């Protein structure tokens, strides 16, 4: 659709939404904090989690459930700073390679057995470093793990590694009970379907395809928590979850689409907020295959960046829920982020000039070259806009909609594509989520790696240097240099930056916004029901 003809009312609505979203986000923050109450059941619409072993999966559907039953050594606050969880405190040796954790005393597993440092050592050595899809990469970092006493565990690293602590939360480092997993295959241990953790809620039942029911752990090691009696996770797809939330059958809607967010925005008694989901912040890039002509030419890549009106794409295709990206890195990592990088404001004249300069001239039919874009159904609107906008500068785009698996295979495994459109979550540390898109060593046949096949030793060296630098201020400067370099080289074109909200009934449930950047995995600990009892009976 031509931009000039886009209905003014839609643009106005979207602008209103942009203004209203932060306001809505503040509902929970600015309201006076009444005294928490006890009891009640929170019903959550989420996905079907599958096996409830958090140490073998990075599934976004499993962790909202397992996060209520398990703990990591630390938890990340909303700025990705480590805070105590199973570890009350920790120290780092002068050489930056030894981390000593003092564990909380008197922690018990849900079956009554005492928790100890042996559980931590076992979980890392036998499960996380072998079977967790992400954390197993730490095996190259960790030299050894020791448990010198019941409440002390020590990690010795092979070399300095600045983001080490950010790996140790429940999402990437949930601790399992050794007495139930030792000697078994963690992938198929039946305990995975009746889990035993240390967390605020205990497992009661799991009916696959229907629900998971958790009940309060009365012996939780954090005094006075949790406040709710039960959590019920109902397995629902997005459309069904929206209907159930609207019908009042669900109190927390975990993964709403942008349209659903708009549907419930400004409804009384309902909060639509990004707070607590900072851990899911992402930049959505257009990936260019640098091994295919003419994308190897940086002038062509810059021309494409100028041709794309990312403001318009963010406003329309993302309904204002995500913002136009101003940097290759998400703005939700403030200590490393900068928008002072080369910008590509929408400018077709500049784009045309760059393409001419690169020798990619228009043919008789006005077309410079034909290319294709692969994407899955979640990005249909974005793909159509990209096609239209690139068409304006003479680049004819064939849209190739495919299912997620085909698209992953074409882009990451076979590298058989021209342009691809995808999500990339970045936190909690640029080294964890962001580096993988750009470094030479990650041009591998695995999903969500360096699909553009960009390889610049200078960039790799900066990433390496940043990973070893323990001073955050200096690290931040290294990452800002990287952003400037990557914005200049544009191997991928950042389109939108944001998180996507979650939705809950604030008229009945309070206490959200207090469990860090991955609150969607830990909300149960502090949330309370406004109609509950004033004291725990």
């Amino acid at each position, binding site marked *: 659709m031509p931009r000039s003809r886009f209905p003014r009312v839609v643009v106005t609505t979207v602008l209103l939404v942009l203004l209203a979203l932060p306001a809505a986000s503040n509902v929970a923050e600015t309201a006076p904090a009444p005294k928490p109450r006890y009891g009640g059941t929170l019903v959550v619409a989420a996905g079907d989690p599958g096996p409830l072993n958090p140490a073998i999966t990075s599934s976004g559907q499993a962790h909202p459930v397992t996060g209520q039953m398990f703990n990591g050594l630390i938890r990340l606050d909303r700025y990705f700073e480590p805070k105590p969880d199973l570890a009350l405190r920790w120290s780092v040796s002068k050489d930056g390679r030894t981390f000593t954790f003092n564990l909380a005393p008197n922690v018990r597993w849900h079956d009554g057995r005492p928790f100890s440092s042996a559980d931590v050592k076992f979980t890392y050595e036998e499960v996380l470093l072998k079977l967790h899809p992400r954390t197993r990469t730490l095996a190259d970092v960790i030299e050894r793990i020791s448990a010198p006493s019941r409440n002390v565990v020590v990690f010795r690293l092979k070399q300095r590694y600045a983001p080490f602590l950010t790996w140790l939360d429940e999402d990437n480092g949930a601790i399992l009970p050794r007495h139930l997993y030792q000697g078994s295959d963690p992938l198929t241990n039946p305990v995975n379907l009746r889990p035993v953790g240390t967390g605020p809620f205990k497992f009661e039942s799991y009916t696959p395809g229907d629900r998971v029911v958790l009940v309060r752990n009365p012996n939780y090691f954090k005094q006075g928590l949790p406040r709710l009696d039960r959590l019920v996770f109902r397995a629902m797809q997005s459309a069904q979850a929206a209907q159930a939330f609207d019908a009042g059958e669900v109190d927390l809607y975990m993964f709403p689409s942008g349209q659903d967010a708009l549907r419930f925005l400004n409804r009384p008694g309902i909060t639509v907020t990004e707070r607590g989901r900072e851990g899911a912040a992402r930049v959505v890039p257009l990936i260019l295959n640098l091994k295919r002509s003419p994308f190897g030419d940086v002038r062509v890549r810059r021309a494409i960046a100028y041709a794309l009106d990312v403001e318009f794409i963010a406003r329309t295709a993302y309904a204002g829920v995500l913002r136009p990206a101003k940097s290759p890195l998400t703005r939700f990592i403030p200590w490393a982020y900068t928008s002072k990088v080369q910008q590509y404001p929408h400018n077709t004249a500049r784009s045309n000039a760059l393409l001419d300069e690169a020798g990619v001239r228009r043919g008789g039919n006005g077309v410079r070259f034909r290319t294709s874009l692969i994407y899955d159904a979640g990005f249909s609107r974005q793909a159509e806009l990209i096609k239209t906008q690139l068409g304006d500068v003479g680049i004819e785009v064939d849209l190739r909609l495919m299912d997620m698996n085909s698209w992953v295979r074409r882009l990451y495994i076979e590298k058989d594509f021209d342009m691809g459109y995808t*999500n990339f979550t970045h936190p909690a540390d640029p080294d964890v989520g962001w580096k993988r898109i750009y470094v030479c060593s990650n041009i591998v046949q695995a999903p969500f790696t360096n699909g553009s096949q960009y390889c610049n030793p200078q960039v790799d060296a900066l990433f390496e240097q940043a990973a070893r630098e323990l001073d955050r201020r200096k690290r931040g400067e290294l990452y800002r240099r990287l952003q400037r370099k990557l914005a200049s080289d544009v191997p991928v074109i950042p389109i939108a930056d944001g998180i996507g909200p979650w939705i809950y009934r604030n008229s009945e449930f309070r206490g959200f916004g207090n469990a860090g950047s991955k609150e969607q995995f830990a909300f149960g600990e502090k949330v309370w029901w406004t109609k509950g009892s004033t004291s725990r009976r």
Partner: protein
Amino acid sequence: MPSARKSGGRRGRRVGASAAEARGRGGFAVFLVRRLISGVALLAAVTAATFVLISSAPGDTAQVLAGQAGADEEYLVLIRERLQLNRPLPYQISSYVKAAAQGDLGYSLVQGRPVRDAILDRLPASLLLAGTALAFAALIGVTLGSIAGSRRGGSVDAAISLASLLAYSLPVFWLGQLLVALFAVRLHWLPAGGIRSAEDPGGVVDVLRHLILPAGTLALLLVPLLVRVTRTSVIDALGQEYVMVARAKGLSERQVLLRHALPNALRPVVTILTGYLGLVLTGAVLVETVFVWPGLGRLLYDAVLARDTPMLAGLLIVSASLVVVANLIADIIYRVLDPRTDFR
């Protein structure tokens, strides 16, 4: 497909019945054995076809388990080894068939449990939904079809035919969302989805309240075909000589329809209903998805998305088995309806 002579109805002839029935009994036993053998062959073919189809589709379970977070190549290799996805296809098929013959349908890493357990857990919900929908559909479809057939060309026939055509053209997804929006979101009469509510789990009334919308939707999708088939069969039966004889005896049109025409008109209806039994169990994917019904249809949907090979193979084998069993049941019912049925 068994055949029966067209002339004469169940109540329309008796002469020579015992000889025909004796032949029929022998033929029926042979027929059953033949059906069982072909059923086993069918299951083997379904298993092989399932593996070939899944392996030729892009992506695999390892990729899905790796998730959007990404994982290194070694992880993918490790998972593929666990699932034997790196073995040649004939090996995968033969080892699966051997295990399946012993009742072991494999292990689903995606579900974290044996496939057999996962299917057996979902089966009751699917049977409840399918059984209720089929019962409703049969009752309404046969009733309306009979009325339309017995009043061929009249305004009632036209109204029923038009209504069934409309119902036939309704997209399930749209209809389901519409019903939820009306009865759950707006009126708050019925729950939006699921099989039990969060606060009152498991009560009979609670489950029945959750059953109304999905079973009603599924039934509504089956009714139009039943109406049309019943109507055509009834029209056909009403033109037979034994009906003329019944009318000549002075029976009322109602008696003629219910006692003579309808029983003979039910054979194609039985074919459809039993055919649906197999399909409804795993074929109600859309209805189960819209209404968040934890049955085999959603399990199948999730298994496809996750490229969960053992689960898909298990579900397709169960589905094919149900079709085989349903067809056998249909044959038995044919015989009850018309003992002259020739199964040779």
